[in-house]
């Protein structure tokens, strides 16, 4: 563990970036977020925004990040609901019906 530069050999091409607590806290953007993300994008980095949030949909997360003026697409956000969808298609069931139950009304 140290605070030196990563031995950067141009081998990193992507960043998985946690959202809450890293980019913003509560309703406040953490200083330097936009500049950092822009710098990474300018260096050719792919960024995937990872969240464990299940209380809001990807669209709402996207809209919140847009309000902060972050440069991203909705598809850059990856959540457990999105992963579940991929997972169910891949592994378990051929047909997926999402019932609008208490658990799924804000599912996607």
């Amino acid at each position, binding site marked *: 563990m140290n605070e030196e530069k990563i031995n950067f050999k141009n081998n990193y091409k992507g960043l998985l970036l946690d959202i809450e607590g890293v980019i913003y806290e509560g309703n406040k953007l953490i200083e330097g977020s936009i500049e950092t993300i822009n710098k*990474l994008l300018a260096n050719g980095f792919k960024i995937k925004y990872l969240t464990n949030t299940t209380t809001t949909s990807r669209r709402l997360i996207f809209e919140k990040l847009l309000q902060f003026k972050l440069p991203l697409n909705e598809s850059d956000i990856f959540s457990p609901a999105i992963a579940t969808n991929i997972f169910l298609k891949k592994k378990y069931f051929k047909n997926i019906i999402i019932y609008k139950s208490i658990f799924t009304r804000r599912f996607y």
Partner: protein
Amino acid sequence: MIDDIKPEAIILGDLFKEFNWEKLNKVFQTILENNALIIALHKNRYCKRENKLSLDLGPFVAALEYATSKKSVLIGKPEKNFFNLAIEEMKLKNEEVVMMGDDIVADIGGAKNICLSTIQVKTGKFQKKDETNVYLQPDYRINSISGLPYILGME
């Protein structure tokens, strides 16, 4: 709503303040009656809400697992699958990817499980005791996201 269906699987998301005995009990009964698979969107113990560490989805998943003697299929961080699926979508290899987060277990532990380089920020859920965690340490720890370009050699 779930009375009239016979689910093969129950997907558990976080209900925050809407969790209550009636709902949990209904889900418990549905799982038992249908021998349904429990899929949990994650099993995080706690998170920061209204500025305080608060119960997350995990404790409720654990309660249902305990009551039904079943183990759930977990989806979100820190599960390997979650990180792997995200990297797959980026069309990159694991060694080309860095994970940065504030949560020592979900973000750092999860990413380390699939051998990603890891960076922890000292914002959000970061706690002082993370720095002395004997089992789990990130490759790098920085004050906040604004220190990332330097760490990556971009400035």
